[in-house]
């Protein structure tokens, strides 16, 4: 498609997510693009990052030479533990999700439906090695589940769909989707499109997606 509007960069999307997370929140950032949200958190706020392999209070990657094999994130990258951090075992870690203790999680996705279903663990390919990790637990595991993704695939297919065609990760669990074109809120009355990219109109967005969106109240 030919763009007549200015898409947001991944960093700009991440900063939109970060600006909506209030001071004092407990947050899990999914593997991939969502980890960039950590780089956008405003100064002076205390956001406690959770990683499902057993750490609250996750900090940035260590300085070169200071890597510690026992201190990593869910993506198996080296991280640090901030003052006030806590370590715990896996059952406790997932109790924090399943039990509704986490305020937000931010996930990547292959597809999200207009009713908040998410598909992000398998493309459905028969030859791929199936692997789910914590995706299904995270999808239902926070008070608010946000998705951060490009709105379209590289081939131009819209990833916001009426009904997911890829294997589901969770049902009716996504609350808000941050994309390079707009932000979408999943509501009982339909999908609300807001914060459209510069130069993009509501009607043009609907046309690109083949969907009807509500205007923000």
């Amino acid at each position: 498609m030919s763009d007549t509007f200015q898409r947001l960069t991944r960093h700009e999307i991440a900063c939109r997510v970060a600006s909506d997370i209030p001071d004092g929140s407990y947050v899990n950032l999914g593997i991939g693009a969502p980890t960039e949200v950590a780089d956008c958190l405003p100064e002076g706020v205390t956001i406690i990052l959770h990683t499902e392999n057993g750490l609250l209070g996750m900090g940035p990657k260590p300085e070169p030479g200071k890597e510690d094999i026992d201190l990593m994130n869910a993506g198996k990258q080296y991280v640090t533990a901030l003052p006030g951090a806590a370590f715990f075992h896996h059952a406790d870690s997932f109790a924090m999700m399943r039990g509704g203790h986490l305020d937000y999680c931010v996930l990547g996705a292959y597809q999200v439906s207009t009713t908040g279903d998410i598909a992000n663990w398998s493309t459905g390919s028969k030859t791929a090695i199936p692997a789910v990790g914590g995706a299904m637990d995270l999808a239902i595991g926070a008070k608010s589940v946000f998705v951060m993704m490009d709105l379209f695939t590289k081939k131009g297919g819209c990833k916001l769909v009426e009904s997911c065609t890829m294997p589901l990760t969770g049902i009716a669990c996504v609350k808000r989707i941050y994309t390079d074109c707009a932000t979408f809120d999943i509501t009982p009355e339909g999908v609300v499109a807001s914060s459209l990219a510069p130069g993009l109109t509501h009607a043009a967005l609907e046309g690109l997606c083949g969907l009807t969106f509500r205007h923000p109240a």
Partner: protein
Amino acid sequence: MNKIRSSLPDALAGITDGATIMIGGFGDAGTPFELIDALAELGATNLTIISNNAGTGEEGIAKLIKLGRVSRIVCSFPRQPNATAFDARYLAGELTLDLVPQGNLAERIRAAGAGIGAFFTPTGFGTALAEGKETRKINGRDYVLEYPIFADYALIKARRGDAHGNLVYHETARNFGPVMATAAKCTIAQVAEVVPVGAIDPEIVVTPGIFVKRVVEVRPHSAAREG
């Protein structure tokens, strides 16, 4: 009471073909590589392995798979960079995979250790991984019935242990260790340091010794494996 074993083979004594074995670790953190190496040397085969991952490269669980010792693996995330051993045997149909969402894996192991007969969890409801499973709507929310996962043995890694089997861990290397320790008939812990009984402050014991049958000291041999 002395649960300390003087060598890795001693620690693994009794493991036979067909055993079901939990192995702690998340990626490399908390993976008891030396116990796994010793298990490979022991030669037991037709094993069922329960672990979060299926090993990377040719180390750890990947080594057991490459040697053809594993017939079934229960895990959440077998897909890893260079996990060629798993990929080859799985795609050839020589290895049965039971894929379990990570939180369900942890909780099913916990349930086994805690004497819970089964539990309803929201994770996975409506997905392919809950197909054929009993479901129930409770207070308006949909749940899937999941059963405990038991094992004959658990191989875990901890930072320090004593002759009573009390353990403390190190950072995110704790991961599955404490729950696996409760769910196996025989939990074997490799620890970086054996300390005298009484040296671990009871207030900070993470795994009480009742859950641990054998402790073997494996001193870190490089900075890369410290902990």
